[in-house]
């Protein structure tokens, strides 16, 4: 087993503090299919960490398990020292974790502003609507538009902006750049940098490790429902061949 597996509940290698989120021995099932086979990793406060891996490695399922959206799960997920594995999804959200799903989950019958205002405030330190509009000027222009009438990039901005308002400390972003134009990807990168500077902690699922390399502190690699490796971002360049092998690119 690579060393990445042993860091849970201990100071995180490269981060030097007790983790804000500590996942250990996480198993998850969809019906009869056993998807996660003991996932272990941790994230320190203020870090941006990615989960890399091929399709079907269990990255999205890991995010959904943290969020309590997978019915059958076992193991331990500790957030800010509190065990959350048995909690329902709404309680996990209220404890300060926010999830931005790959399909974005914009409510089509609400307009942009209503979508932004919908999530409940779960803690202090969230952005105001004006601050969200400052991050994403496109949204301000389109605040009265229905959710259905947005482009893919605008939907993604809205999905991210919506959870920045809540005051959640840990943001789970599932493939935020998928299918978006390079100029929008740049905008999302700048957003991640800015919210990281404001102290948010981010767990990012990415297929595009070139994008991940521009924003992340560390990378966990997943294969077959397990975390198999951890690569600090500084060492990514020297490990390119290994990453290519993992991702099959």
């Amino acid at each position, binding site marked *: 087993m690579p060393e990445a597996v042993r860091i849970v509940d201990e100071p995180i290698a490269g981060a030097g503090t007790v983790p804000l989120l500590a996942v250990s021995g996480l198993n998850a099932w969809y019906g009869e299919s056993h998807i996660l086979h003991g996932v272990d990793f941790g994230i320190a406060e203020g870090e941006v960490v990615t989960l890399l891996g091929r399709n079907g490695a269990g990255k999205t399922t890991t995010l959904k398990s943290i*969020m*309590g*959206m997978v019915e059958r799960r076992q193991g331990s997920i500790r957030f800010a020292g509190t065990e959350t594995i048995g909690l*329902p*999804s*709404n309680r*996990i*959200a*209220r404890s300060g974790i*926010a*999830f931005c*799903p790959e399909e974005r*989950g914009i*409510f*089509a*019958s*609400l*307009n942009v502003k*209503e979508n932004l*205002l*919908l*999530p*409940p405030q*779960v803690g202090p330190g969230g952005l105001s609507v004006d601050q969200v509009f400052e991050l994403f*000027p496109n949204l*301000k*222009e*389109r*605040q*009265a*538009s229905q959710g259905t009438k947005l482009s893919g990039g605008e939907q993604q901005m809205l999905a991210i902006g*919506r*959870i920045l308002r*809540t005051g959640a400390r840990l943001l789970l972003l599932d493939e935020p750049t998928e299918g978006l134009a390079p100029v929008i990807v740049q905008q999302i990168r700048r957003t991640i940098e800015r919210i990281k500077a404001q102290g948010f902690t981010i767990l990012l699922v990415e297929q595009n490790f070139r994008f991940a390399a521009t924003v992340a502190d560390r990378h966990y690699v997943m294969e077959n429902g397990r975390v198999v490796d951890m690569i600090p971002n500084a060492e990514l360049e020297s490990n390119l061949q290994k990453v290519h092998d993992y991702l099959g690119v």
Partner: protein
Amino acid sequence: MASEDRAAAGVTREEGSLGHQRIAFTVMVVLFVLAPFVFYPVFLMKALTFALFACAFNLLIGFGGLLSFGHAMFLGTAGYVCAHAAKEWGFNPEFAILFGTGASALLGIVTGLLAIRRQGIYFAMITLALAQMIFFFYVQTPFTKGEDGIQAVPRGMLFGAIDLSRPLAMYFFVLVIFLAGFLLIYRIIHSPFGQVLKAIRENEPRAISLGYRTDQYKLLAFVLSATLAGLAGATKALVFQLASLTDVHWTMSGEVVLMTLLGGLGTVFGPVVGAFIIITMENYLAALGQWVTVIQGAIFVACVLAFRRGIIGELGHWLKKPL
């Protein structure tokens, strides 16, 4: 600069759509105020109570996504309780209506707690089963007078001063109740609570993962809908001076589905239009007897196949304004 202009245009657009609804509301009020001088008031009062019933039903399915197939239990329960209170206990009409409405609200809490645990067809079947239990209870229990119903319910003196046996006085009393219920529903669907309901209807898992206990929202929507359906039922009992088994029968639950679908599910004005069309058909085509049911069935099929948004839904779509 361009972006500010566009933002301003967006805001105006939003206000424009609400302004549209204000115009529609004003037209509706003017029509209802003038209507009793042209049409038979009892027919109009019947249509107004059914319109309120359909609006209450629409609050649940159109905005909460919950198809209840037992809403007659709230209409009928409030009718019986109101009629009994007015006739046997001598309640003033306003208190009799409040009492009947309260009874439906209580019934809504109990049945809602059981029903909202399931969705879709299971929710519909649970509400139907509960409504059937309530129906058989009213068939058996003595105070409802069985097949005869509670007859000759006195309309009484509103606030001890206004004689409701005068048709126009009763009509405007019913109109005020209808408008109050309608405006309350309008307020609910445009409130933050209403927006959470719409979010739940669209994507319940997402609403939960944003931190909402969706069961509580669904229960509150169910109870509000039951209460307003009760308000319609209690008022109807005073209009006809009768509370009978017709109002708790499952066909009544089906009729309100038809009214809402015909007018436009999830629209503000659709249920009112749907209710008026169905009640008009029942009244003016009464000579055709059972054929009315066949015609209604044909309309239902045509509505589902050809214009699924309903009359007002299609009109709003055509005008590009939500109505």
